[in-house]
């Protein structure tokens, strides 16, 4: 019986348990739910939980454990000469056995009878059914495959029986515990609490896992390339990772990438902060509710556009436009119509990324400005201050820490942005200060190093993890600092 069918049966038992439990509790209380400790629904939920949780737990343990048990039993029955071979060859043999076993399930009974234990015929028969084998199977393999199938079948059967029995048993035991003073609500709520804790720890544990994996890979990188060469190197020239060469002849300097990241992020903030802040002030303080209710969602739509779309907007529109504009300007001034802005440049990437960031700045700042208590506004207006004086001298100072926090969060987005930079600023890792020339960022180089046909042991690919962990450290610091500032600000009005 398939796993999803078993799950369906358990769910049906649980659902039935819910109905029966709820009805039973009402019957015990003589139809008056006020005589019960908990609402009837909680008794029903208690029965359902007892029917589902242990059964599903057993199901998963069984699913994980049974292949391992079966495999070790099959390997144990290998002939002595196979056991004497290396671990890898035993693994290959076992892989072939599982293939044969899978193939035998596809073949009809007559076909199996006809083939008997003729390896060559078996191989061709299986090949015809779409199950290719690496070589002619040996007789012991065919026997083992038969054993494997029997064992798997038995295990499935036993699992189905055990899970269903546990489900019914759990429901029955829970059903018998229903009594007017039985505290069903407390138990059900405890189960809910545990599931909430599990859900939130999954997110945290995943993050920890990602960081740990990046750390281990980055450490492997640092065994090839010394840390100081990476962090303080000024040349980025990783060369190609030729298979088998394993050479570390490339140069992995972080500085050009870091500078590019910060420079492009800075240019982006230069565009995003004033526009975003002004639009936030307009939305929060001047716009009529009607305008606000249409304009604010419209602005937030910008935040929903995938960054790759901004990327080709930069590549096909903004970049060429700036290039042509610069050549026209140059021509008007000096008579020489050569462009001084490259199509792919820091300016293009910064400008387009700035547009992408506007909704973040404005939306976050708008929330912070509207959170300033109305009493402060009234107080200032009541003293005869104009609206702009009120905004400049009372509201913005009061909201400033929050706004700074919002800007830091936006900055960490700018640092982590990839697609826009790939398309708008190019991939040339250079150290220079001219905003009209191409530069590149850490994220772009991570993509560069990890796309294509790779060998995951060379420094050329491992460097991506070192870059990743560096980037992660930067954004983490920005976010923590932003949270710290925002929290401090929140206490001000309490």
């Amino acid at each position, binding site marked *: 019986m398939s796993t999803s069918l078993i799950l369906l049966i358990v769910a049906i038992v649980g659902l039935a348990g819910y109905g029966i439990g709820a009805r039973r509790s009402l019957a015990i209380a003589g139809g008056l739910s006020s005589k019960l400790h908990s609402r009837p629904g909680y008794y029903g939920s208690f029965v359902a939980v007892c029917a589902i949780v242990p059964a599903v737990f057993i199901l998963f343990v069984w699913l994980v454990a049974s292949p391992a048990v079966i495999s070790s039993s099959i390997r144990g029955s290998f002939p002595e000469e196979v056991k004497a071979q290396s671990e890898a060859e035993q693994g290959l043999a076992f892989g072939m056995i599982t293939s044969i076993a899978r193939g035998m399930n596809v073949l009809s009974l007559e076909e199996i009878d006809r083939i008997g234990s003729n390896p060559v015929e078996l191989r061709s028969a299986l090949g015809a059914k779409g199950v290719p084998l690496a070589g002619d199977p040996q007789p012991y393999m065919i026997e083992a495959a038969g054993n494997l199938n029997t064992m798997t079948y038995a295990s499935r059967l036993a699992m189905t029986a055990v899970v269903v029995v546990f489900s019914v048993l759990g429901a029955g035991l829970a059903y018998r515990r229903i009594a007017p003073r039985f505290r069903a609500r407390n138990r059900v709520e405890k189960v809910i609490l545990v599931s909430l804790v599990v859900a939130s720890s999954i997110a945290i544990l995943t993050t920890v896992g990602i960081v740990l994996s990046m750390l281990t890979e980055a450490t492997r990188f640092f065994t090839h390339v010394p840390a100081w060469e990476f962090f303080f190197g000024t040349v980025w020239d990783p060369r190609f990772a030729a298979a088998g060469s394993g050479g570390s002849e490339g140069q992995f300097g972080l500085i050009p990438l870091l500078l590019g990241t910060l420079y492009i992020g800075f240019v982006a903030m230069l565009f995003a902060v004033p526009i975003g802040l002004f639009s936030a002030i307009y939305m929060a303080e001047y716009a009529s509710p009607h305008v606000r209710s249409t304009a604010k969602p419209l602005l937030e739509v910008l935040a929903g556009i995938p960054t790759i779309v901004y990327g080709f907007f930069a590549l096909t529109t903004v970049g060429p436009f700036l290039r042509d504009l610069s050549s026209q300007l140059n021509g008007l001034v000096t008579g020489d119509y050569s462009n001084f802005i490259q199509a792919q440049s820091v300016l293009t990437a910064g400008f387009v990324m700035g547009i992408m960031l506007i909704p973040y700045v404005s939306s976050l700042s708008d929330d912070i400005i509207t959170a300033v208590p109305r009493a402060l*506004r*009234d107080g200032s207006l*009541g*003293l*005869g*201050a104009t609206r702009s004086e009120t905004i400049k*001298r*009372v509201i913005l100072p009061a909201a400033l820490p929050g706004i700074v926090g919002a800007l830091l969060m936006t900055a960490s987005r700018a640092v982590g942005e990839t697609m826009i930079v790939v398309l708008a600023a190019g991939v040339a890792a250079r150290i220079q200060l001219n905003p009209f020339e191409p530069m590149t960022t850490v994220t772009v180089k991570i993509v560069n190093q990890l796309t294509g046909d790779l060998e995951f042991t060379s420094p050329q690919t491992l460097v991506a993890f070192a870059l990743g962990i560096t980037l992660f450290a930067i954004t983490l610091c920005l976010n923590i600092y932003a949270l710290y500032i925002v929290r401090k600000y929140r206490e001000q009005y309490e």
Partner: protein
Amino acid sequence: MNMMSEAAVEKALDQKMNDSSYKMIGKDVSVYYGEKRALFDVNLNVRENTVTALIGPSGCGKSTFLRCLNRMNDTIENCRVTGRITLDADDIYDQNIDVVELRARVGMVFQKPNPFPKSIYENISYGPRIHGLARNKADMDQIVEASLQRAGLWTEVKDRLHESGTGLSGGQQQRLCIARAVAVSPEVILMDEPCSALDPIATAKVEELIHELRANYTIVIVTHSMQQAARVSQRTAMFHLGQLVEENDTDKMFTNPDDQRTQDYIMGRFG
């Protein structure tokens, strides 16, 4: 001797009050919040150097009327005011009147103390600075000190003028807000239940302050406390369901009101 002079001052003030013309005149004032009408043709005048108390059950329109007097209702969406309100014969809802200038002349103290999250000094100097009342730092220092003196807060805060205004106690914060309003040298001060968030001791201090401020300012106060109205005001106006029920001398109002509804409200029979 001191008692004598105080009594003399009181008498002079009462004399002035009876002689003086009205500081503010409200004629047929109606207020609508969207479709809902909150005030019905209120005719109420405010006398100079007088404390006028506005009383009445919750939702009767007394705060709404108060907020009409310096056009704070302008900040509320959908609010519409009809009728005529004058300040020294100027129609305050006239196109030519600058609302900013009006609010400098008619100051306001709110129900909840709302000091700015700035230092005590900056809280007071805020108004004078935006209106350009001080020529230099010394001038400003003097305005700050005088305002705090007026609000009876000077001795309590003179050593920590540059600490945050939000760090003061509730009663001190409210007196800071009064000092802030006074610093702009308004002619009229509006107070919207200034003591409702304060304990009895702080309330007593604020009431005493209102009493003293009367010598220089015209004060309109909204209050839910009958005792407070009786203690601080000379004139009392009673509102009910958006209408002005009665306006009279406070003494008469609390002993022998003209209107039965006033009597009932003061006796605590409704509201």
